[in-house]
């Protein structure tokens, strides 16, 4: 149902969306798209906007494909602007052309001009302001893992100081790949298959190996709040903080403003002595969190 929220955000201001529950959002999307399609189908001048139906048909088929892919195969993929981008690229121009063609074929030129002006100003100012605000924010702060907050991350600074022989296991292996490309990093052991949602047979074995390596000082678990702010934010296939602590029998060695370091305390006594004052203050903004909630880690259809 995230797809409905994504689609409604293309045309409705956030403040109006905030007051709607899921059913309300579905109703608004259906009435909006259905109304435009009906007006387009009922236009008097059949040649006005001829061919635009192709865009609507493509958008509908693509939405169906994306929904089916996520529903039956890739459960963890969010239906965000990345996945639904092709639908936005065809649905928004269809709606614009269909509305214009319907108005033009049903009203006098003067009324059509007035309506066109009002709709263009209303929709243009709303989407234009939102787009400009987004572009300015990305210009100022960067996008995704390039967000300025990652550059200031105390957790990343801490990890930089660890010996290179240490195996880093993380819920943000992509972050470590980008900022510490020379280090060998791994994703947390999968507890479930990403596609089938079935439990992974080797999960417990991997967790035991992780514990053994951590006990010998060969491995550490690095968790980023910028990737998963709380246990509820972890995807279904990854163990959350509580599960890692229990299944791999680890302890929290360091708690940063933006992350956690987990390991076996006996193997890392010096970590606890690390003075926290050496680290720079961290302005917590969720890196990438403002970008459609995309974690950017899952394979897409």
């Amino acid at each position, binding site marked *: 149902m995230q797809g409905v929220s994504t689609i409604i955000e293309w045309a409705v201001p956030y403040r109006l969306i905030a007051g709607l529950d899921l059913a309300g959002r579905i109703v608004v999307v259906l009435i909006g798209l259905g109304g435009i399609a009906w007006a387009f189908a009922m236009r008097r001048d059949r040649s006005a906007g001829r061919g635009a139906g192709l865009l609507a048909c493509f958008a509908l088929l693509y939405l169906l494909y994306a929904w089916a892919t996520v529903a039956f195969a890739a459960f963890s993929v969010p239906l965000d602007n990345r996945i639904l981008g092709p639908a936005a690229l065809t649905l928004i121009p269809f709606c614009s052309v269909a509305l214009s063609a319907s108005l033009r074929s049903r009203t006098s030129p003067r009324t059509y001009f007035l309506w066109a002006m009002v709709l263009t100003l209303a929709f243009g100012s709303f989407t234009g302001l939102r787009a400009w605000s987004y572009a300015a924010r990305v210009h100022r702060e960067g996008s995704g893992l390039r967000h300025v907050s990652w550059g200031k991350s105390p957790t990343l600074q801490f990890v930089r100081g660890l010996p290179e022989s240490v195996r880093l296991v993380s819920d943000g292996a992509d972050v470590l790949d980008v900022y510490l490309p020379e280090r060998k990093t791994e994703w947390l052991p999968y507890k479930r298959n990403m596609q089938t949602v079935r439990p992974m047979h080797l999960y417990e074995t991997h967790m035991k190996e992780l514990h053994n390596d951590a006990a010998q000082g060969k491995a550490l678990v690095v968790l980023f709040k910028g990737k998963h702010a709380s246990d509820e934010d972890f995807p279904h296939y990854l163990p959350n903080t509580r599960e890692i602590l229990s299944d791999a029998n680890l302890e929290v060695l360091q708690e940063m403003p933006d992350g956690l370091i987990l390991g076996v305390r006996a193997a890392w006594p010096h970590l606890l002595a690390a003075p926290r004052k050496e680290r720079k203050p961290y302005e917590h903004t969720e890196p990438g969190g403002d970008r459609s909630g*995309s974690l950017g880690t899952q394979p897409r259809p």
Partner: protein
Amino acid sequence: MFLWVLSTSRWRARSTHSPAFLGQNGMRPTSVDRIAAPVLVALSFAICWFMMARGIGLMGDSAWYLAAAQRLDSSHLIHEYHAPLYPILLGWLARGLDSLGLAARMYNAVAFSLTTLALFGLLRWNCSAGPLEASIATAFTVFSQPLLANHADAASESTFFVFLMFTLISLSRYRLEPRSLSWLCLAGAFTALACVARYAGLAVIGFCGLAILWQNRRCVGPAILHTSLYAILSLSLVVVVAAHRRMAG
């Protein structure tokens, strides 16, 4: 090749027979078209470039794309599940510009501009939209948060959008000229490229296949022949990549 087909005499001849209701909004570019298209393209490029002032954005898959583009090693490209076209094109551009970061920014800005131009052309000459209508609809679409978000990062979406738009243009022209195999072949070729840009291109194959069948619904022979030709062309690159991966183990 695409530009060559666009400029064929048939296209020009058709432009003189545009529907009467279009009046000044016929197939010939008007003064509004001549101003709107370059302005939209320039604005797209400028906004995309401005947005990436801190460098190309990075998401989960970006690290792989950039590494693959830097190495341009076919075995590396083939062994992963990612679609290979974006890193290949980016790698070529990076070699030309001698900087991967600059190439990635340039690539996204150019792809965004091409998408804008293609969408304007699609609306203007294939959806019977007037020059002002097409300009406004294009501006609403490309200067919207979903489209900008898809062009802020090093990802394959930008490439996919370009080939998706070219496919829809070719398909629209084919619908107007059902006997023209050149538009059908172009649609197949662009779909094939879209599929190796993102595997979601498979949805484009399904859609175009249905559209071609619907177009020829009264003649079974051409319907099967044209759909088969399109399917073979559009699946060709994906099959080559899949076969290569299978052979490579």
